[in-house]
């Protein structure tokens, strides 16, 4: 393994046993980029997989005007950092990555829906993000896509005539009597995998759920109360975010990035800003970077508090919900007082941050966090000792370490199943390079483990916030972003509270956004939820679902 010259932009890097020359990308992420051919595309993926690496994202682009064809990109985590392979296509197909990284499956299906680029040899060719908003022969992310032309909802029409059938499912814990259903009649008919057998029946749930949560469809096949199979149908929230990015001025895109998944607005706005700064080869002032980390850790604390409350509530301990939501509300009010927004939206901007932190604000944060830590410790001991709660948590929604590794489980849920991935630890950017983050992790992979990791991470984030407040550098909070020429490519990569968020950005004419692909860790983790629920009873599903707490909006785009 040679890595000549670290991450300085433009330097070359090679991976052992791989005849690909990588070029270091500029910016805060330790990232390398290489243009590859079809053979290298697969070799690169396999080499990273053999190393023990994982897939972060896979997406395509329409580069017909600039390069005369479409391109595909895949982002992988290898020992060296973030590896991005770019494959120029001669036609509209590319070699399937799903056989190496199963997590790529849905991303490939989405790429087909949005760009008409097909993965040759993929075992599931059903549509994914496309329901009824556009026809099968239309591709929204192609530059010549005419927005506005859309089919009317004709309730009598068969919309999936000619759609590929459900794939043959082999292996795993799926029952053997699996047959494949004929298309159901109404609306977005989608060929679900049907489980047949004596006493098996289906429970369709959603898209409108029985609570204040996002829309999606879950198809349970059950015997008695036991779940034999869960199949998800997502894409209900697809609102054309990637298309909306096209043509935006770079500076404006951060508002949209901050609304890809509202609960992760800090992570997305940081990742987007990081990508812009990479394109412009600008480094924000140190104070801005440290403040960003403070905001990111606060976002993590707030979300974990909410999750812990709802997890208690889903196991019938309403006390937990009241207590944790009270703590969360106090934090949100502090955010409003100090930064002007309860969820810290639009505080991180390309070049720095939009709001500074005054000394009295720092004092308020310190005293609030001291009180918070004590209360959370007490609540943790109550959760730990509550027999009814632990009975629901332990061995519920189990994901083994092996399964998590094979399917690429990431983020909080991954760390609860022995997947030691935390970008703040492994590929830290400033200021994490100086903070020595201690990774929260657990091996059991059940709801109890995901609860435990959340508690650990709250305490760790509180420690990090204190260190940041102690060592917060003085100085400016933003630097100007110069004009960026067209044809540049940059990435931002941030460990958000749910997992690692990637934003890949390309500029076009006039330095505007030509293509922006925001990637949410939920892409990797949704398929694991299908696995985690197997063999559990239906009433445990809300609890298991909440323990993952995945984003629909961040996934559906």
């Amino acid at each position, binding site marked *: 393994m040679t890595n000549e010259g670290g991450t300085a932009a433009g330097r070359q890097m090679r991976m052992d046993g791989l005849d690909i020359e990588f070029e270091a990308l500029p910016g805060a992420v330790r990232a390398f980029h290489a243009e590859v051919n079809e053979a290298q595309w697969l070799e690169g993926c396999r080499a990273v997989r053999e190393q023990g690496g994982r897939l972060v994202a896979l997406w395509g682009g329409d580069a017909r005007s600039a390069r005369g064809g479409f391109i595909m990109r895949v982002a992988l985590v290898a020992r060296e950092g973030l590896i991005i392979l770019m494959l120029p296509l001669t036609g509209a197909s590319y070699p399937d990555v799903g056989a190496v990284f199963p997590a790529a499956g849905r991303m490939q299906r989405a790429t087909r829906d949005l760009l008409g680029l097909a993965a040759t040899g993929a075992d599931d060719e059903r549509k994914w993000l496309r329901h009824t908003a556009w026809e099968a022969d239309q591709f929204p992310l192609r530059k010549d896509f005419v927005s506005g032309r859309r089919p009317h909802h004709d309730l009598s029409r068969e919309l999936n005539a000619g759609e590929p059938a459900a794939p043959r499912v082999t292996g795993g814990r799926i029952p053997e009597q699996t047959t494949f259903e004929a298309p159901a009649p109404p609306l977005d008919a989608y060929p679900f995998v049907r489980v047949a057998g004596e006493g098996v029946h289906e429970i369709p749930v959603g898209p409108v759920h029985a609570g204040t949560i996002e829309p999606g469809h879950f198809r349970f096949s059950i015997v008695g109360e036991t779940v034999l199979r869960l199949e998800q149908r997502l894409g209900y929230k697809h*609102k054309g975010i990637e298309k909306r990015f096209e043509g935006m001025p770079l500076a404006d895109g951060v508002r949209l990035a901050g609304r890809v998944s509202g609960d992760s607005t800090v992570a997305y706005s940081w990742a987007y800003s990081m990508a812009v700064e990479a394109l412009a080869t600008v480094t924000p002032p140190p104070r801005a970077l440290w403040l960003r980390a403070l905001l990111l850790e606060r976002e993590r604390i707030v979300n974990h508090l909410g999750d812990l409350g709802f997890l208690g509530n889903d196991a019938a301990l309403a006390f937990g919900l009241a207590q944790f939501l009270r703590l969360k509300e106090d934090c949100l009010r502090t955010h409003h007082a100090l930064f002007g927004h309860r969820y810290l939206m639009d505080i991180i901007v390309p070049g720095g941050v939009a709001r500074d932190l005054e000394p009295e604000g720092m004092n308020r944060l310190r005293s609030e966090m001291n009180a918070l830590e004590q209360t959370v410790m007490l609540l943790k001991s109550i959760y730990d000792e509550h027999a009814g709660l632990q009975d629901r948590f332990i061995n519920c929604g189990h994901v083994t370490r092996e399964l998590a590794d094979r399917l690429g489980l990431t983020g909080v849920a991954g760390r609860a199943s022995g997947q030691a991935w935390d970008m703040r630890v492994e590929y830290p950017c400033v200021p994490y390079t100086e903070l020595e983050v201690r990774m929260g992790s657990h091996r059991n992979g059940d709801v109890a483990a995901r609860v435990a990791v959340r508690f650990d991470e709250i305490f760790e984030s509180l420690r990090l916030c204190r260190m940041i407040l102690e060592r917060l550098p003085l100085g400016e909070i933003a630097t100007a972003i110069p004009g960026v020429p067209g044809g540049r490519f940059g990435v931002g990569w941030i460990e958000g509270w749910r997992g690692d968020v990637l934003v890949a950005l390309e500029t076009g004419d006039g330095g505007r956004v030509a293509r922006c692909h925001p990637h949410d860790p939920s892409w990797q983790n949704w398929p694991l939820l299908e696995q985690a629920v197997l063999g559990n009873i239906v009433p445990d599903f809300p609890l298991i679902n909440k323990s993952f707490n995945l984003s629909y909006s961040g996934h559906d785009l």
Partner: protein
Amino acid sequence: MYQLLKQIAVTGIKTEPYPEVDESLRVVGERLQADILASFAGALTIRHVDAGSCNGCELEINSLNNPHYNLEGLGIRFVASPRHADMLLVTGPVSRHMEVALKRTYDATPEPKLVVAIGDCGCTGGIFGESYASCGRVSNVIPVDVAVPGCPPTPVAIMQGILTAIRARKK
């Protein structure tokens, strides 16, 4: 169990702890209860429909039930089915993929029904606007009584939106 009970006692009642919000909340609360008594026999039930939001508005709707805002204390409750609901609380620009589900939810809600659109996206389509995948604001798809701006609107603003819709119904 001792610790749990002690924590409840130590925490005390957290509803309305915030001086400046306190007053307005109390006024809202009194009016709201009177109006609910008059129009909806003392209890208002809400079905929330996320029609394509970024999930920011959902965070604030969830906040309504935290001890500080304690929406249920006013006789307002979230229910699991539109058939049990007096009001739909709709968030997001309506994605084209949620258009039919939203219409069906609206049709399933018995009369008299109210619709409150939540957030900048629900009011105008917000940053997502109208596109191949988005129908834009909620009123492009179903009739809306009250629209509450904000990104996301604060819990107090959402409560005021609910009140305004009930008042409009009375007139």
